[in-house]
């Protein structure tokens, strides 16, 4: 009985210690995110002044709001195009870099550089690159292709794609390389003894063993895709071409108009969408890992 009591007191003491370590952070998170987010959920059912109850009116309005729909469409289109391309390209490069040994390690550093380059400094190049008389147009005229005012046409979307791929390649290469390094060498050796070629090895050993990282890389690449707003904003400002109009643009406009009701409903919807997507991916791939 006494021993039990002492153990309990020990646990209580440890709980108190844990609380002391956690409180500053938990307090801040609660104050700046959790409590106000509860308020945001409440507001999403009220009108803009926060006075009158509107039920799901705000949500219904969003589904008829052309700006919001355009942004959602662009965001989804962006994710569906960019993420597969990024994943495949970075996987290919990571495999080749790993195979290239020492030189691969050296070259890898170059791929990581874009992560360190702030958007604010890259905008200058983007402006010269995608101007109607810029470098890209110069290249097009060299190979006798028509050139465009890239930023002010539907090609603007592809400007975002390029910036995203450029910026995130290194990030994904690091993750793939970590996955590759975790595959034990003796698997390959055993396969080679059995007469497997390098393609066999890739499809039967490398790919299956990379499945667990595949999930996290997809999720992280998706989350990073929200950050292309930075490029879009610095290159094209508050009112870019329709094809690069993103969620953050809509939120900024609502913020300027103080449409807090729409912002609240939009925030809740975005939260749910991201949450559901992460859970879905987790279910789809969780079993493999």
């Amino acid at each position, binding site marked *: 009985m006494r021993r039990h009591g002492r153990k309990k007191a020990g646990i209580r003491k440890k709980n108190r*210690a844990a609380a002391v370590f*956690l409180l500053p952070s938990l307090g801040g998170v609660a*104050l700046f995110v959790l409590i106000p987010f509860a308020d*945001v959920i409440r507001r999403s059912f009220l009108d803009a002044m926060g006075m009158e109850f509107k039920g799901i009116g705000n949500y219904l309005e969003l589904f008829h709001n052309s700006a919001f729909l355009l942004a959602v469409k662009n965001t989804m289109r962006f994710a569906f195009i960019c993420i597969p391309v990024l994943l495949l390209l970075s996987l290919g*490069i990571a495999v080749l870099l790993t195979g290239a040994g020492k030189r691969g390690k050296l070259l890898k550093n170059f791929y*990581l550089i874009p992560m360190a380059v702030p958007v*604010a400094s890259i905008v200058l190049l983007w402006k010269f690159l995608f101007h109607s008389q810029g470098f890209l147009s110069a290249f097009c005229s060299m190979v006798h292709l028509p050139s465009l005012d890239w930023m002010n046409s539907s090609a603007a979307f592809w400007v975002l794609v390029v910036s995203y791929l450029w910026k995130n390649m290194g990030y994904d290469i690091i993750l793939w390389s970590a996955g590759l390094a975790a595959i034990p060498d003796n698997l390959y050796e055993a396969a080679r003894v059995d007469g497997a070629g390098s393609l066999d090895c890739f499809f039967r050993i490398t790919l299956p063993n990379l499945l667990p990282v595949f999930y996290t890389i997809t999720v992280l690449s998706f989350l990073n895709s929200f950050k292309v707003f930075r490029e879009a904003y610095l290159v094209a400002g508050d009112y870019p071409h329709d094809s690069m109009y993103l*969620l953050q643009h809509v939120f*900024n406009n609502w913020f300027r108009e103080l449409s*807090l009701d729409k912002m609240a409903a939009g925030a809740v919807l975005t939260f749910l969408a991201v949450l559901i997507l992460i859970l879905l991916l987790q279910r789809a791939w969780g079993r493999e890992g």
Partner: protein
Amino acid sequence: MKKVILVILGFFALLAAYPVLFLAAGSLMGKQELAVYLAPVLAKGGGYAAFRLFPMYPTLRAYVELLLDSPGYFIMFWNSVRITAGILLGQLLAGVPAAWGFARFEFPFKRAVFTVYVTLMMMPFQVTMLSNYLVLDQMGLMDTLWAVILPGAFSTFPVFIMYRFFTGIPEAVVESARIDGAGEWKIFLHLGLPLGSGGICSAMVLGFLECWNLIEQPLTFLKNKELWPLSLYLPDIGLLEAPAAFAASVVVLLPAFFIFLGGQDYLEQGIVAAAVKE
């Protein structure tokens, strides 16, 4: 075959590094030289822009002009330094103990609280934007640097990274210190901090690159442009301002670049720790 692969890899590597070379080269060119290459874009001329990576007449004039003629730029630079330092300091003070708490203690609702942290770290700014605004407005902090610093300081992402590193410390080490009579605080300071320093550095390197690049937050929470950080700097690029624009872009880049060079290992470890389960 090997050679072909190396050439392909090298080509893409150059492509990745090209923007940095472009900015560096441009910042070392004089007005005339830049004008020759870039006139089609900068002025309304015919033809196409061209460029070269080795200036014909390298000069540091652009940097000198930036130093002497653009006080606004340096105000922004200092705003960036203050925001970045504030957020990182906050992440250290609140985040490191929290990560230790999650890694080393069992307590009621631990799983639930931790899941909340992980979920929050995944959420894009659109989700937390209004929440942050409501609080900042209540506290009268809108339009002060605190509006950017405080929400950033309580980001849950660094907590998660440091947690990953702290869980890697063997329990036996901590337990033996406990048996020797060390208090929890002492264990944290003398064991946790040194053994988890890799994780702390990783979180700081990733945090720095993120803070130096903040755009959404200052754009929303700072109406007064005198408080804007460098990440919102948009150079006027006319023919006359072009050299300064290049120099300014390089100056934005340099701090992040040095952190990257010095902390590349930490950067890689941090990215892996945040993603791959052990």
